[in-house]
């Protein structure tokens, strides 16, 4: 009886020949990622020692640049921690900063076949790199930094064999909404993606989908390795790695084949994504106050490229705030060199520095009472981006950009005619 990808990675990390669903395993953690929130007094307990500074990365993202004195102090404490323990992978505000999961991608920290944890729920983004990456709790992070270990309950896996290709203008975000609408809640299961269709997806698209695995309520989300992944990693991180494929006779809870060509542009209605998505046409015309593209899910270079293509030569509708947040300062620079930033600014977008910012309702784009927003970010729960009476629609970066121009939710197809997608 063969194993899915996750079981093989966890077995190796637990130094066992194999693991099975239902097992509780204690594993060595290859990478522990801390971010600025960890260092707030209500979260932090100061370690007396740490297991290995080279297995830790500190990345400031949730509250940057510091919007108030409490955050500034947390940043000071984080810097002091990194210095005290000699942590070299310190991503402070500046050249190498970004949203933690995006920096992890930029730098190749989510090594294929390895285990990575962070106390942010979208850590599963690292699953795009064949890495057993997941969100844990704040105390788990402190425990792992000190002891080098953590625990996991091994789950069964649902496997998606992707075939075909997404239609022009349809993105990985639409694919996520399709999964959330068609298959619903994936609670208690790992989700594994593979197949010819997966191999045709860019690394950015895979990262969007892996990030949104959290919103399918999956435990782990993981992708099969391929040449594109191997090349991506080699450009970023010289460490040797052993990517894991599923066994040919792997046991899955369920195996589902999905033709990417069948996915349409979708929008999730406010407050939930699972079972709450409609074809974009059904939401068209809904007036908006704010449009947002950013976060670990949609702050990738490809997302900014899509947004720029949609708004090129157009102007954001009067009365609409169009906020764009690159996932990292590195992506910001790439988008600048590619001309996307200029195109966005010329259209009237506000481009912010890399931060979690508006996605979590922290700062830099918080919604007021009864406002309506369409967002290409991670989550549209009630109150997520600010006031609990605000309505948050969720769509692809193409849909959000088109809506910013229209002043109301719009079908991006209308804005992409003649464009070379």
């Amino acid at each position, binding site marked *: 009886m063969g194993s899915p990808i996750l079981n093989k990675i966890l077995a190796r990390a637990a130094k066992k020949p194999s693991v099975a669903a239902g097992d*509780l395993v204690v594993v060595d953690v290859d990478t522990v990622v801390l971010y600025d*929130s960890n260092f*707030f*007094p*209500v*979260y932090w*307990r*100061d*370690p*007396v*020692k740490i297991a290995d500074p080279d297995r830790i990365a500190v990345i400031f993202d949730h*509250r940057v640049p510091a919007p108030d004195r*409490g*955050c500034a102090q*947390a940043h000071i404490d984080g810097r002091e921690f990194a210095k005290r323990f000699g942590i070299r992978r310190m991503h402070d505000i500046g050249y190498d900063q970004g949203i933690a999961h995006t920096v992890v991608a930029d730098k190749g920290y989510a090594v294929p076949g390895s285990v990575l944890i962070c*106390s*942010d*729920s979208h850590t599963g983004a690292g699953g795009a790199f064949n890495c057993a990456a*997941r*969100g*844990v*709790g*704040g*105390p*788990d992070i*402190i*425990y792992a930094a*000190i*002891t080098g270990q953590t*625990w996991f*309950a091994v*789950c069964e896996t649902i496997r998606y064999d992707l075939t075909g290709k997404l239609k022009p203008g349809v993105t990985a975000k639409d694919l996520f909404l399709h999964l959330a609408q068609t298959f619903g*809640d994936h*609670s*208690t299961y790992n989700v594994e993606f593979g197949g010819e269709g997966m191999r045709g997806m860019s690394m950015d698209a895979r990262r969007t989908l892996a990030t949104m695995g959290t919103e399918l*309520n999956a*435990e782990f989300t993981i992708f099969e390795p391929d040449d594109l992944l191997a090349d991506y990693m080699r450009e970023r991180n010289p460490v040797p790695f052993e990517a894991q494929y599923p066994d040919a006779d792997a046991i899955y809870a369920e195996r589902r084949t999905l033709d990417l060509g069948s996915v349409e542009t979708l929008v999730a209605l406010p407050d*939930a994504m*699972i079972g709450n998505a409609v074809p974009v046409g059904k939401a068209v015309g809904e007036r908006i106050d704010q449009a947002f593209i950013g976060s670990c899910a949609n702050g990738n270079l490809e997302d900014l490229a899509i947004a720029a293509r949609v708004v090129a030569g157009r102007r954001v509708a009067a009365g609409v705030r169009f906020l764009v947040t690159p996932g990292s300062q590195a992506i910001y620079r790439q988008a600048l060199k590619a001309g996307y930033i200029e195109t966005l600014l010329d259209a009237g977008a506000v481009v912010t520095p890399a931060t979690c910012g508006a996605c*979590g*309702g*922290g700062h830099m784009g918080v919604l007021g009472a009864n406002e309506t927003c369409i967002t290409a970010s991670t*989550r549209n*729960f*009630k*109150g*997520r*981006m*600010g006031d*609990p009476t605000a309505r948050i629609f969720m769509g692809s970066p193409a849909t959000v950009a088109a809506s910013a121009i229209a002043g109301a939710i719009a079908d991006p197809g209308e804005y992409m005619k003649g464009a070379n997608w």
Partner: protein
Amino acid sequence: MISGRVWKFGDSINTDMMMPGPALYLPEAERIRYVFQANRPGWVDQVKRGDFIVGGKSYGVGSSRPAALSLRNVGIGCLIAESINGLFFRNCVSFGLLALECPGVHGMFEEGQTAAVSTADLTVRNDQTGEVRKALPVPRQLLDLMCGGGIFPLLESQGLIAPLPAKPGKTEMLTA
């Protein structure tokens, strides 16, 4: 055996309801004032120390924020749900909130009834109706952590984290 008055909640109760974004970095004493603000305003003034929550499916979906700590700090003695999100369950373990998955539990209680839970055999009983159900098994190590206050007391007992300074504002983790 512990018992408590039951508050009932539905399916997919998410972390943003228990700990909304604007409350994330407030001192714990202020942060807990926001629990269920969006979906059940005023609840924090009604809940009493030792009360239980009975939830539906996928309790605790969403963020890794320490919402389990807030539930503990408003006085919740035990959370029992049809199913609990994996990340939220981890936080219950880490912060020492007794949390059990018990299929059928949602239909077993009316709000205000009394639930009794045995951590020895993981049974859940309705004191009014006498109905008893078995919760799903929890590995002993995790149950011990949940009942022992979570990870921080463990690390502290081993001298691996610095004791909390006496300074006000840094003691909130221990209120429960």
